[in-house]
């Protein structure tokens, strides 16, 4: 997909989704028991961490877009990988909608989230646009690292989700021709 206005942020979010998809593909090869693995110092089990990444992505995008019609992913401990995967297209669509219009003003204040309808009594925060946008990127990386740490600590194959392999896939990084 070609980046629109704010090409850097758009690319970062596209990389974020690519990385989560790639990690999901890897985790689909795990047994049910392996999805319940964890190690001290990480967020929780592999399954729970994946659900947390995608559910949070939906929350950040809902806040940024100001509208979110889909039922957000529930972070239940036994959520199926298929259920998590069904929500990834919502995240991808949300990112593309975010960049389909005018340039984002990073300092515009977002007064609330449309997901308040699911938690009417929760604390209400207002924040500048750049906060949930940058948090989406940071949060995804943080928790994907947890999953890779759990895989590595248990002798399982990890997956390279850095920006380098993504850039090579996009041909944004290639060997110079002599």
């Amino acid at each position, binding site marked *: 997909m070609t980046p629109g206005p704010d090409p850097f942020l758009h690319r970062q979010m596209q990389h974020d989704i690519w990385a989560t998809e790639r990690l999901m593909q890897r985790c689909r090869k795990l047994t049910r028991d392996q999805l319940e693995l964890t190690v001290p110092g990480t967020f929780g089990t592999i399954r729970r961490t994946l659900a947390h990444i995608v559910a949070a992505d939906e929350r950040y995008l809902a806040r940024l877009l100001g509208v979110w019609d889909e039922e957000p992913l529930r972070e239940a401990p036994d959520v199926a990988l298929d259920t998590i995967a069904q929500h990834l297209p919502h995240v991808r669509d949300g990112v593309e909608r975010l960049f389909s219009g005018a340039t984002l003003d990073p300092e515009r204040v977002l007064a609330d989230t449309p997901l308040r309808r699911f938690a009417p009594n929760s604390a209400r925060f207002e924040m500048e646009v750049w906060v949930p946008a940058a948090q989406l990127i940071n949060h995804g990386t943080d928790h994907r690292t947890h999953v890779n740490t759990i895989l590595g600590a248990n002798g399982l194959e990890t997956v390279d989700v850095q920006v380098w392999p993504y850039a090579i896939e996009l041909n944004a990084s290639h*060997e110079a021709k002599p």
Partner: protein
Amino acid sequence: MLQALRHDLWATEKLIAHLRTLKKEQLDLGAPGTYGSIRHTLAHLVRGDERYLVRLGVLKGPTLSEDNEASLDEIASHLARVKTAVEGLFTGSQFDPEQIVLDTFRRVPTDPPLEIESWTMLAQFTHHGSDHRAHIGTILGAHGLPTVELDVWAYGRETGAIRERRG
């Protein structure tokens, strides 16, 4: 873009400040599945920052040595150079994320250089930082040591970009 980079630098600075409260031997702790010891990971993180900026042509001079001997003071002094260079990226002419940079840092020195779009370097900069700070957070937690909040929410609260609305 600048806010994301500023958050990244703030998070590494805050982590270094937290690690200064540890004993010398605690800096050599590691945990399975992470990159290495706390000290080695931190040096690798800041050296990575420097190398990305060298490739973008906004930082010169020797980069941090990536070994288990780097002191926190030494790492912090290199981070200060990184911070100045990042701010310099956004002063003067507009940063062009699509501009091609030539990367001559190849593992096999005879390999041809890489042509890389600039956005890649800065996206990797923040990714790499978050990735390795998460490793250090895991090591601290795994050894029962206190961790520190480094996410964008914490940064947003500190800078006043997030405010609780009452009523």
